[in-house]
């Protein structure tokens, strides 16, 4: 792998950039691999990378039906945080956070992980109770965070309306300084390049059309480019997981919903942290390019259309202007939708299945991007060892039958 | 009907009453209509509002007998009695809204119950929970276009129609009893929001409030 550095950049500039190598190869599929990863998004590519790097499993193929990093990796609002309520979720996301913190150097690819901090606002007394509960839990789990009052929030974000006149005044917030944003596309590309350097075959435009299963054991997949064999297959296909599971005769408690996001036109820096509000329902940060990156809500119906309903966008911008009245004259440039695969308890599935050798990693809902390295790291370990990694174990499919959910919905309160 | 507890929530005693908009008039005022007012808002408070539930066939006969109008059986139907002061509106295949002059509702409920005998129906008095707001004037329709998602074009919303629909961020029952007249049935707790919205959106038409 050609190492990237500032010095290298200068050297390449002097040779008119004619000597840059491909960031990843475009290999032809082999007949057989040790492990097949289905899904060339961030999670899938990272799983392949960690398999090769940490477990010495280098005969790995990543099968991507479109182009790598083209799903939710390319369509999210790039927020990275680990201040989840429940121990199991917190452990998973914090594991991920620690990997984020050295990721650019590990991959030799600047994923622009910007630890500018995330505020989760509270607008009601119950919001504040939930925030205190979560921050207290985070602290005892070793995750940074503090509870701010309205004044503390105002100091961090002077342009926000923190007055008592707001319809739902800001009462306070949780603040995780280590949280932030990262450059989403670079994450996929960085993992792809690093995995490729370890010998992983990234096969784009390769669609799985069926599984080869004998006596309850997987031994390969059918694809539009022919059959490929492997005794271990990990499905990391986000919104398309249900479709894949069905091919293998497996049921998943997943529903795929549209999740919309939008960006403003680029502006000079005006907001240097991430602000999220569940109550008025909008979240916002400003990208390094200057766009305000704004997350909208999940549409209630199932959809694979990569678009959602317009009122969702309207409600989101109402929330943003309510919080930031100065943005009223700023313009929305573009909106788009991702397909998020959601679980009933708002936590992912990292699990074995009834088919031996076939694993699923899905159901990330809105939490997928921030979990990328952590999810992949524990999933790779599970695939390599044939046993679920302890951090992954609570996220088994079984929980939907035993009732042992990890209910992150609960963290937000249900009825008031 | 001993199985159901009917209750006259109204009294003949001289008790001060407050319409759902009473607070709004004090807080937001009520601009007096003038010659330039292209739309006028009028509240008709303290009417009798009954929700009728049951099968259409069962209810129809009783309503005709007691109110002298036939139950609108088709969706979105709105009928008035000969005097034009009592109305029955289709809300759902098994639900109708009856609005009558204030004070008539309890007797009406009892007469309907008597006429319906042991049939499985329900009647709920909601007179305290909602108010009727009328919009009149040439700009009334455009003001509604700013407020409701439903198509209020005359070709789609003729006189004698009524629907439940989204009004800004709340819900109203919208009815068209006359060419230039529209009625909103508004829930009490949302009345102030609805009023403030109408004043705000109606500003460009010089909206006035008749009290």
């Amino acid at each position, binding site marked *: 792998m050609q190492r990237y550095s500032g010095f290298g950049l200068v050297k390449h500039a002097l040779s008119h950039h004619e000597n840059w190598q491909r960031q990843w190869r475009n290999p032809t599929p082999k007949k057989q691999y040790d492990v097949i990863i289905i899904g060339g998004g961030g999670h899938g590519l990272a799983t392949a990378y960690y398999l090769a790097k940490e477990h010495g499993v280098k005969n790995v193929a990543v099968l991507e039906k479109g182009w790598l990093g083209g799903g939710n990796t390319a369509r999210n609002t790039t927020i990275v945080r680990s201040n989840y309520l429940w121990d199991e979720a917190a452990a998973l996301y914090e594991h991920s956070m620690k990997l984020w913190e050295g990721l650019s150097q590990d991959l030799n690819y600047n994923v622009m992980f910007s630890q500018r901090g995330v505020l989760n606002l509270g607008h009601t*007394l119950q919001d504040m109770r939930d925030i205190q509960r979560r921050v207290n839990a985070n602290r005892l789990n070793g995750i940074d965070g503090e509870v701010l009052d309205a004044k503390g929030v105002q100091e961090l974000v002077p342009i926000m309306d923190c007055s008592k006149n707001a319809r739902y005044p800001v009462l306070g917030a949780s603040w995780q300084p280590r949280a932030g944003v990262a450059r989403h596309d670079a994450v996929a590309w960085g993992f792809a390049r690093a995995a490729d350097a370890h010998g992983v075959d990234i096969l784009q435009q390769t669609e799985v059309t069926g599984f080869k299963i004998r006596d309850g054991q997987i031994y390969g997949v059918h694809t539009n480019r022919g059959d490929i064999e492997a005794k271990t297959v990990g499905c990391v296909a986000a919104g398309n997981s249900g479709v894949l599971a069905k091919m293998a005769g497996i049921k998943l408690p997943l529903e795929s919903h549209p999740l919309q996001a939008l960006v403003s036109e680029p502006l000079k820096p005006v907001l240097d942290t991430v602000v999220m509000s569940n109550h008025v329902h909008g979240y916002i940060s400003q990208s390094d390019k200057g766009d305000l990156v704004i997350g909208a809500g999940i549409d209630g119906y199932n959809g694979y259309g990569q678009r959602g309903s317009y009122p969702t966008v309207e409600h989101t911008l109402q929330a943003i202007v309510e919080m930031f009245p100065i943005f009223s004259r700023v313009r929305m440039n573009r909106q788009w939708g991702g397909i998020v695969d959601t679980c009933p308890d708002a936590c992912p599935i990292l699990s074995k299945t009834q088919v031996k050798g076939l694993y699923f990693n899905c159901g990330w809902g809105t939490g997928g991007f921030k979990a990328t390295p952590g999810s992949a790291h524990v999933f790779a370990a599970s695939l390599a060892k044939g046993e679920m990694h302890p951090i992954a174990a609570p996220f088994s499919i079984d929980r939907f039958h035993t009732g042992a959910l990890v209910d992150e919905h609960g963290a937000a309160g249900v009825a008031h | 009907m001993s199985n159901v507890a009917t209750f006259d929530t109204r009294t003949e*005693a001289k008790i001060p009453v407050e319409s759902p908009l009473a607070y709004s008039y004090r807080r937001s005022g009520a601009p007096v209509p003038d010659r330039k007012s292209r739309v006028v808002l009028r509240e008709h408070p303290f009417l009798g509002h009954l929700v009728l539930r049951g099968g259409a066939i069962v209810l129809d006969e009783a309503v005709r007998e007691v109110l002298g109008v036939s139950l609108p059986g088709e969706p979105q139907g709105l009928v008035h009695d000969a005097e034009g002061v009592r109305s029955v509106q289709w809300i759902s295949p098994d639900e109708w809204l009856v609005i009558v002059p204030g004070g008539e509702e309890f007797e009406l409920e009892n007469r309907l119950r008597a006429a319906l005998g042991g049939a499985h129906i329900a009647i709920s008095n909601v007179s305290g929970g909602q108010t009727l707001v009328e919009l009149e004037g040439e700009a009334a329709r455009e003001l509604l276009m700013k407020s409701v998602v439903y198509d209020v074009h005359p070709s789609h919303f003729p006189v004698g129609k009524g629907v439940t629909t989204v009004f800004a961020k709340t819900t109203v029952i919208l009815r068209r009893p006359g060419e230039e007249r529209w009625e909103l049935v508004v829930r009490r707790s949302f009345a102030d929001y609805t009023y403030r919205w109408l004043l705000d959106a109606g500003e460009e038409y010089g909206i006035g409030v008749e009290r």
Partner: protein
Amino acid sequence: MSQPNRLTQGGRIDRRQPLSFTFNGQAYQGYAGDTLASALLANGVDIVNRSFKYSRPRGVVAAGAEEPNAIVQLGSTEAAQVPNVRATQQALFDGLTARSTNGWPSVQRDLMGLVGKLGGQFMPPGFYYKTFMAPASLWMTYEKYIRKSAGLGRSPAEADPDIYDHLHRHCDVLVIGAGPAGLAAALAAARSGARVILADEQEELGGSLLDSRELLDDEPAGEWVAAAVAELAGRDNVTLLPRTTANGYHDHNFVTLHERCTEHLGEVAPRVTGRRQVRSRMHRVRAGRVVLATGAHERPLVYAGNDVPGNLLAGAVSTYIRRYGVVPGHKLVLSTSNDHGYRAALDWQEAGREVVAIADARPSPDGEWVEQARARGIRIIPGSAVIEARGESRVNAARVAKIDLDGFRVAGAAETLTCDTIASSGGYSPVIHLASHTGARPTWNDDILGFVPTLVKGVSAAGGAQGVYATAEVLADGVEAGSRAASEAGFAAASVSLPQVAARRDGAAVALYQVPHEKPTLRAPKQFVDLQNDVTAAGIELATREGFESIEHVKRYTAMGFGTDQGKLGNINGMAIAARCLGRSIPEVGTTVFRPNYTPVTFGAIVGRHCRELFDPERYTAMHQWHVEHGAEFEDVGQWKRPWYFPKTVNGKIETMHEAVARECLAVREAVGILDASTLGKIDIQGPDAREFLGRVYTNKWAKLAPGRVRYGLMCKDDGMVFDDGTTSCLGENHFLMTTTTGGAATVLEWLELWHQTEWPELEVYFNSVTDHWATMTITGPEARKLLAEVTDMDLDKESFKFMDWREGVVAGVPARVFRISFTGELAFEINVQANYALHVWETLFAHGEKYGLTPYGTETMHVLRAEKGFIIAGQDTDGSVTPEDLGMHWAIGYDKPFSWIGQRALSRPDTARTDRKQLVGLKPKDPKVVLEEGAQIVFDPKHAIPMPMVGHVTSSYYSPTLDSGFALAVVKGGQQKMGETVYLPMADGQVHEAEIVSPIFLDPKGERQNV
């Protein structure tokens, strides 16, 4: 004031109406009818901005929505600032104040430009992915500087003085675009009687006809436009919306039209007779049929130096001359691949300025306009193109050379032609953006060298939008589309006679996107593809070399098409370059997906009136005015404003919440308090099966509740988790009144309907909301009975009106239902009256209550009082993961009910049946002065290293003035079996609180106080 490039006549501007404006602090003049861009060009302003990455000087390129460069900041005051206005779409108004968005210290002399010049070579696409990694600790510092150079305009720092609006529209046929196709379609649809909306983004309807060289019925095209518009305007089934951009095409023919109502009048909307006007308005249109008559955008050619000011689109040159009376230069070189481009040269020459040469990429051009140009003596250089523009702040020469199209190489020596303007045309791209919003991928059409829209149900395209460019054909296409749309919407087609348009013979165009240079692309001077994002042909080539092969990869790696113009000018050229580098065809490289908005829209317009006081409804009870007048602080509970506490002024000082709540609590425990409980949901349930239904949706039993009695009920979902609670009263054998939590009212009603309609329709029962009908006031405390007795002659004797009874009566002269239920643990009466009478009853109680110390209290006191009694608040002490067993409410679980009620089955699942689940308990702090933090986490072993095993958390915690101690409710693992044990609460400040697990009932465990 001079406008050096303004023609003395011609154009659609009004020379009698001069307008003053300033740009970068310099005063200029233009005319009514100008855009800011045309006025700047008229005044000879070359540099309008600096580019984003390399900070290169940039000028106006286009005349419409596709303009990438002329992005300015508008506004003379802070509140009126508008970032990122496209000068080509901003009508000039008197006093307009604009600035360039980039350039420091000025757009003319920009220091960053030096950086761009020197450093440009070090900033290939994706350079930031490859550097700034060492040392890791410096990244946040690097980032600070990267961010500083980002962005175009700036956000205002003050709130917007303007208002915005929505209008919900419905129509049979929506025609988008009022050029020849759109006008013809609208006429056809309108004459059939259909409800028609015609929207166009420009200041004037007419589109390309407004600057056309062609005659319609032997008259200038503008005449036909005027007649067509007049007819449409005269029909009451037609709505004309100029200045209105269709910015988003959503499912099932829902289209958002953004009308700029006053943006052409001033930076703040002027008032009309003292009334506010909206700055812009969003029409939310549901259309039966949609006709896309959005025309086409001209493609520029990609050659070296094509970003220097003075490089324009050929069509834009004509538009400025013919529509605005502005010639944006003196000496023109035209580089074209088609006949359409010749229009610029003909117009330029007619405007009296010099056409130096036409470089035509075709070996033997021979169309009608080519012949005209030839006949006028204009030099045509066949088989050639401008391969490089020279100049810094303005073009000063064009290098023209023969090119080999197939071999992608320069085929002869370049000739340098002195000029100040280069116009280029690479053909047209249909405007397919809206069709693409529906998710339908466009398809490449080789005949027109462009993508044409794929259309979903209910939409058609006409004219340029689908690659039909000859005026006569466009008009016919429009009529056809309009008639078809109307007839599909159920209207009989009407005839429309088309104007006569002289047919013009055009020669075939050739495919030319990037023009070759003598040097290979990576070494040639920069050839710009996306001007706004400084994406070059070399950048695209580099991306493909690095393995970015899908067009989506190329776009993301280079940022092509991510600007505010969304790649309207550059995307197709970029795809063509990627295709060339990869040795594939354009469609093989992949199609692009455009997303809403077509052009950016202010947040304000999308928000409409749903902001400030109207952001979200505030729900009030009938006593709200009284609460306000009595100084209540309010708590938001759902959309309700509930009194939180009533601070008094004592000795000139306003009580703190702590003081007020202590006073309110003691008043209830020692005298009498009153609470406005109207916000609780109330559902009237009638029918012979009402009782059976209650038994199925509640966890406890309802079979024996007699009329006149009240019972508490707990509701679960089928996963066994508690989701709401409340009391339900038996009004009659078949008649119940259910109460719900304040926030749960609508949810519970829908929940009941769901089960009734979808599972148990055979049960004869109806549910109606009566929440708003009744106002509810609770008087509670030892003196409650005496107080009530003063205003009613009801029998309040404790034997005849028992705890958990309800009775009818007259209270303060008003018919009332009174419920003897208690959420405080004290003697309590909940009085329900019709809401219109409520204020009277409330005030009457106060008139009589003073001698008993009647004290109004709010939700905070209510919470303290109920917690002292161990009563839960659903949503505070439960969180969707708590079962009735977890709450210790065995008494409210009817395991032996005949019907397996909602939630029952789930309770026996392995995890829900565990005995060490988190269970509701009381916590007594070891130090009574401590009020534990709500949300504090509980541990058994405070010395355990982090991560520390947590066994529960505090759900409710207060100071109890009655106990003079802090106390709390909490959930603790296996807590019900751990009474008396000590738990620890390690806090953020390092303190570790100790508390004892106790019963959650802190006061009067036998319930004697409420039973008096």
